[in-house]
């Protein structure tokens, strides 16, 4: 049990390097506070395609090729791609990567997919099964609304607790080889358990996911013996305004004060005062874009030395919510360190 610290956390024997990231964002994201950090912003939500699903597929394809060109790793040296998205049977990833000619592991962690794929990628590398692993995820406001809520044509009113699915695709290249003084490192992985506290409202996913975030955070601190102070930033995926407050409150009850250290990607990607996104951003691309575009830069510049990155996911399906089921949720945490000097 060398690498296992405890029930949910592993400490990697040698750090896994994040040598490059790529990000493609939609137009609303491009109007947000992170606009200058994205590799590219697409103005047309159809991205020149005939359907939202095809547009999202194209974003995955482009993010992947952008990642390859930015990382400089030849395709023949990529051992695995770990990818997933929100659409039925992971449409965007599977169709977007069908010409990649690289072994692919498809994963579904809802909006926590970036955390799940990076966790698996890091373990593959640390286990000695791979030298380079690409992790990709995507989401699209229009395709997600269509699948999980209502057709856009219906023009349904959104509830105040509703979150806005982020349009975009993010990709990360993990590698065994890197420079500890210049590259970002994954050091610990805490894998989440499925938590279901009985929330049924698919328009209030922040509240549904917050208990999963609390569970994984507490497990991480318990397993590693670290305190919230260890981190410069603790970053959840897409709890939004509602879920973030619940998470802070419940963490305090667990004996960990994370206030001041804690933020949520859903509140970073949009400006809630200026952009009509209600409780904040959500979707696989929410945490993926904030990490790939913004956090990666802050880590690279040494402005953040220790980051706990924890994408969160609501594991509902359109059928389960129509049948009145509750929303099971999950959160995966990665401890990411930077020795870069600012």
């Amino acid at each position, binding site marked *: 049990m060398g690498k296992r610290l405890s029930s949910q956390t592993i400490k990697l024997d040698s750090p896994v390097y994040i040598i490059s990231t790529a990000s493609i964002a*939609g137009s*609303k994201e491009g109007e947000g506070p992170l606009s200058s950090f994205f590799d590219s912003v697409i103005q047309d*939500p*159809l991205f020149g395609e005939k359907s939202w699903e095809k547009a999202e597929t194209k974003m995955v394809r482009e993010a992947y090729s952008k990642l390859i060109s930015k990382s400089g790793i030849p395709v023949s040296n990529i051992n695995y791609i770990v990818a997933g998205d929100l659409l039925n049977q992971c449409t965007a990833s599977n169709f977007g990567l069908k010409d990649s000619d690289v072994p692919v592991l498809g994963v579904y962690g809802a909006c926590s997919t970036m955390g799940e794929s990076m966790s698996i990628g890091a373990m593959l590398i640390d286990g000695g099964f791979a030298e380079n692993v690409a992790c990709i995820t995507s989401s699209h*406001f*229009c395709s997600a609304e269509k699948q999980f809520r*209502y*057709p*856009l*044509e*219906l*023009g*349904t*009113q959104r*509830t*105040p607790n509703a979150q806005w699915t982020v*349009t975009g695709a993010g990709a990360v290249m993990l590698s065994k080889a890197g420079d500890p003084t210049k590259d970002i490192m994954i050091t610990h992985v805490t894998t989440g358990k499925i938590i279901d506290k009985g929330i*049924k*409202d698919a*328009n209030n996913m922040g509240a549904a996911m917050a208990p999963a975030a609390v569970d994984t955070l507490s497990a991480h601190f318990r397993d590693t013996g670290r305190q919230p102070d260890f981190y410069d930033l603790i970053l959840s995926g897409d709890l939004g305004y509602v879920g973030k407050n619940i998470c802070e409150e419940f963490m305090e009850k667990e004996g960990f004060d994370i206030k001041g250290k804690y933020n949520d990607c859903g509140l970073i990607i949009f400006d809630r005062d200026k952009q*009509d996104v209600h409780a904040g951003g959500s979707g696989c691309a929410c945490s993926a874009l904030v990490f790939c575009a913004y956090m990666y830069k802050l880590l690279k510049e040494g402005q953040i030395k220790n980051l706990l990155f924890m994408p969160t996911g609501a594991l509902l399906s359109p059928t389960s919510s129509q049948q009145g089921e509750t929303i099971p949720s999950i959160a995966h945490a990665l401890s990411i360190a930077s020795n870069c000097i600012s």
Partner: protein
Amino acid sequence: MQQLFPYVRAFITGGIICAIAQILIDRTKLTSARILVFYVTLGTILTGLGIYQYVVDYGGAGATVPLTGFGYSLAKGVIKEVDKHGFLGAFTGGIKATSGGISAAIFFGYLASVIFKPKAKG
């Protein structure tokens, strides 16, 4: 000024009906689809009980255009057909009375889908 009153009354009546629906969206867990069905059913029941007619007399289009107005047309059609043809009217009256609206919705819906492409909201 006198000619403006029907418009003001329609605005107030329709506004109240829609404001109630907005409160239901914001304050309850009801989905918009359920509120829609609830409004049509409510309109039918209130018309059957003879209450909604007063709302229509006061508010005009403000009461007949929202979804409750569709329930009003359904119920009125049924009452009329039952008077004319007896029990069978309960099955035929509603659709007969609303056929114009339904056909127009399908036709213009189709037309709109041919001409326009859906877009992401604001």
